[in-house]
């Protein structure tokens, strides 16, 4: 390879790498899907707080989820007429706060949030150095607790195995008197386990998880136990002893703070309803990353009107690639190099069959009238200008005719580039006079074939999706066009053109 060839392939691979790289980065970072119609599961969760207000000022504080393994908070909002609402940060703990000067009687507050399911279910990492908190059991529970811990300690070596052992012991109160005694206290299983672990020197804490099931209402939270292991919070189900976060378990509350604080009311209760939703991944991506650095490469930042323009504009390179391929590799002859692309763009707006019919009829009418024009002995520029006027008249005639016949789609015919049509008619008529109707068919048919092909490619949903959402893929197209441009092999049509030379090949 010569230096120029090396430089050429470097350029091509550079374009491929840059275009593909940016697209990949945007796919990974902004979660723009590569395929159209990709939907993502979103859980709509509604927390409902019921309480009875006593008549004075009311302040309700609900712990809100943050730092969710396996989920990401997408949107959140609170609906509670008459209440002020704010999301406050209390030493790293997000809480929703409803306030009202006076309220009395039963009250209901709602907090709604959407959570996106994420594949990544990494346990949350431990911040700081959590210390075990002392808890004092009363006798005889204290003795039972220390004996149970002793038994569990003897059969375990790590905080995890200790936890598993304690859960196993507590699960079978029939086998162990100490367990039976402890189970008899009014502590919940999770709380009991946390206290035991803390006594044993493990900085365990309670977490509240929400088990997600489609269309469930009035669900409580499920208590879970978290212990710090090697910098990560490991989760245990205190009843089954299962380690790790179950699928569909949304960790609503973590870190030991209270779930709900009510001032100025009583008989409070939190319950949850949930709904599984399917949201287009593209919409999610735009809503979440609409103003990131990488979004600067996307067109979705532009006003809608410009976006529509670009949606069409970014299809042009695809058409250009198709034309380059059809002309250089296949060898189809077209009238006017890029006329087929413009026709294909018009097809995008008129639909193929209608576009073909109207294009052919306008050009055919135009050719008829053009044959009369040649008797008038006009100068070329004036003749083209005349044709432009005739084409516009023909198109309006067809539109009106179509409308009268009840095809409002006839109006879309106006999307055809008039001047291009006028030139096409002029070229075709000269071609007709000079080379005969056969050549008109070959070139006109070739143009329409390439236009239809370009249209079919442009109409692919995946092509529209990629060209609009990943404009940087134009660099990949460019690389493709460059490669086609350096093709010096035979064209497909040449294999037919030279077919009779087969006899000479011995």
């Amino acid at each position: 390879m010569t230096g120029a060839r090396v430089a050429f392939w470097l350029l091509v691979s550079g374009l491929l790498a840059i275009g593909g790289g940016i697209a990949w980065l945007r796919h990974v970072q902004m979660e723009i899907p590569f395929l159209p119609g990709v939907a993502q599961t979103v859980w709509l969760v509604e927390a409902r707080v019921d309480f009875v207000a006593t008549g004075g000022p009311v302040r309700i504080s609900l712990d809100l989820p943050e730092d969710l393994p396996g989920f990401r908070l997408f949107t959140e909002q609170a609906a509670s007429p008459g209440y002020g609402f704010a999301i406050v940060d209390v030493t790293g703990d997000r809480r929703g706060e409803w306030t009202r000067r006076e309220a009395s009687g039963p009250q209901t507050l709602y907090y709604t949030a959407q959570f996106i399911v994420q594949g990544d279910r990494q346990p949350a990492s431990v911040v700081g150095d959590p210390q075990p908190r002392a808890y004092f059991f009363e006798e005889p529970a204290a003795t039972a607790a220390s004996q149970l811990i002793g038994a569990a300690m003897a059969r375990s070596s790590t905080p995890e195995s200790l936890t598993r052992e304690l859960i196993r012991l507590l699960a079978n109160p029939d086998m162990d008197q100490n367990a039976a005694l402890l189970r008899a206290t009014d502590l919940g299983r999770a709380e009991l386990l946390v206290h035991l672990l803390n006594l044993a020197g493990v900085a365990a804490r309670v977490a509240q998880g929400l088990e997600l099931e489609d269309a469930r209402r009035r669900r409580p939270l499920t208590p879970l136990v978290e212990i710090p292991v090697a910098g990560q919070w490991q989760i245990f189900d205190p009843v089954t002893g299962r380690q790790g976060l179950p699928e569909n378990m949304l960790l609503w509350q973590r870190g030991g703070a209270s779930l709900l604080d009510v001032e100025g009311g009583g008989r409070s209760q939190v319950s949850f309803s949930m709904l599984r939703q399917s949201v287009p991944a593209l919409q999610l991506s735009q809503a979440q990353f609409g103003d990131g650095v990488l979004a600067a490469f996307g067109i979705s930042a532009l006003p809608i009107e410009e976006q529509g323009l670009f949606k069409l504009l970014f299809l042009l390179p695809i058409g250009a690639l198709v034309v380059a391929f059809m002309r250089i590799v296949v060898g189809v002859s077209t009238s006017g190099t890029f006329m087929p692309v413009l026709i294909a763009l018009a097809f995008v707006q008129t639909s193929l069959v209608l576009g073909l019919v109207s294009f052919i009829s306008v050009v055919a009418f135009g050719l008829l009238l053009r044959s009369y024009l040649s008797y008038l002995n006009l100068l070329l520029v004036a003749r083209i200008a005349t044709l432009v006027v005739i084409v516009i008249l023909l198109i309006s005639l067809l539109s009106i005719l179509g409308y009268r016949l009840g095809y409002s789609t006839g109006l879309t015919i106006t999307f055809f580039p008039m001047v291009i049509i006028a030139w096409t008619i002029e070229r075709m008529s000269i071609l007709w006079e000079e080379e005969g109707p056969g050549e008109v068919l070959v070139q006109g048919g070739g143009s329409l074939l390439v236009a239809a092909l370009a249209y079919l490619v442009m109409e692919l949903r995946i092509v529209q999706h990629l060209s609009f959402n990943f404009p940087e893929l134009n660099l990949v197209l460019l690389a493709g066009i460059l490669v086609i441009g350096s093709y010096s092999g035979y064209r497909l049509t040449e294999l037919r053109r030279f077919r009779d030379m087969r006899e000479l090949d011995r």
Partner: protein
Amino acid sequence: MNWISPRALSRLGVLGINARNRDFVARYNPRRAFPLVDDKLKTKRILQAEGLATPGLLHVVRHQFEVRGIESRLAAQEGFCIKPAKGSGGKGILVIERREGGQFVKASGARVGIEHLQRHVSNALAGLYSLGGQPDAVIIEELIEFDPAFTGLSHEGVPDIRIVVFQGYPVMAMLRLATHASDGKANLHQGAVGVGLDLATGAAIRAVQYARPIREHPDTGQVLDRIQIPDWHSMLLLAARCYEPTGLGYLGADLVLDRSKGAQLLELNARPGLAIQVASGRGLRPRLHAIEARVADRIRESPEARVAHVVDAFAVEI
């Protein structure tokens, strides 16, 4: 299937359009030289300056207002040929052989009035026949009276000889004969007959129409494989000498043989077609590569030496 495999084509050394454009036209023909051959008026000026034989220029029409005057300007001419300066592929060429009773007789025998000539010139001026429709000039030149050797070989139109010249070395030649099917034009894809010529002798190798071998002219019945071009060596020399003034490394020279003036250059082409390979029954590629190799390690040769080389190197073995 009725195709030839790319491998077989490649074995035959056939040059495809893409390879011609990329490896020869783009590489050996400097862009600035294109206007010289795309404009027949400029071509004619260079050729005349270089002393290369070409039909004499009678008249040039550049503006619309001059169109009315062509009748008086041409009063002294019995026959002539009207050409748009930037016409391509033989477009817009109107040959008037003689006059008859105030009318003009075309090569086809059809009679037309002066208005027809004026409209034709006017159309050409407006750019009807030029690439991209740009405004054009029209040249009117002397009529070629073709050599009796070609009698019966061409239906209407003048038989012309296309020689592909690569870096000054003629590499392939063919005789193009208009037919009824080609409507008097010499383009092979329109149905003209192509007769491949032996570069050494100017004798016919084989003849094709529509890429198929034929033995006789479809209209005149003249046997084609006994054709021998007279004065062949001077034709080769004329073609070879086009290289220096134009600077075009890959060109097609179109020549005719005039009864009294001998070989004449009609026009030059910077993108000569590939049909010459079909007419000759062999590919251009081996010859082009041979010339490339020769030029790479040799000092420049004179046109005479170049012709002597190709006559020796590219003779058809019998």
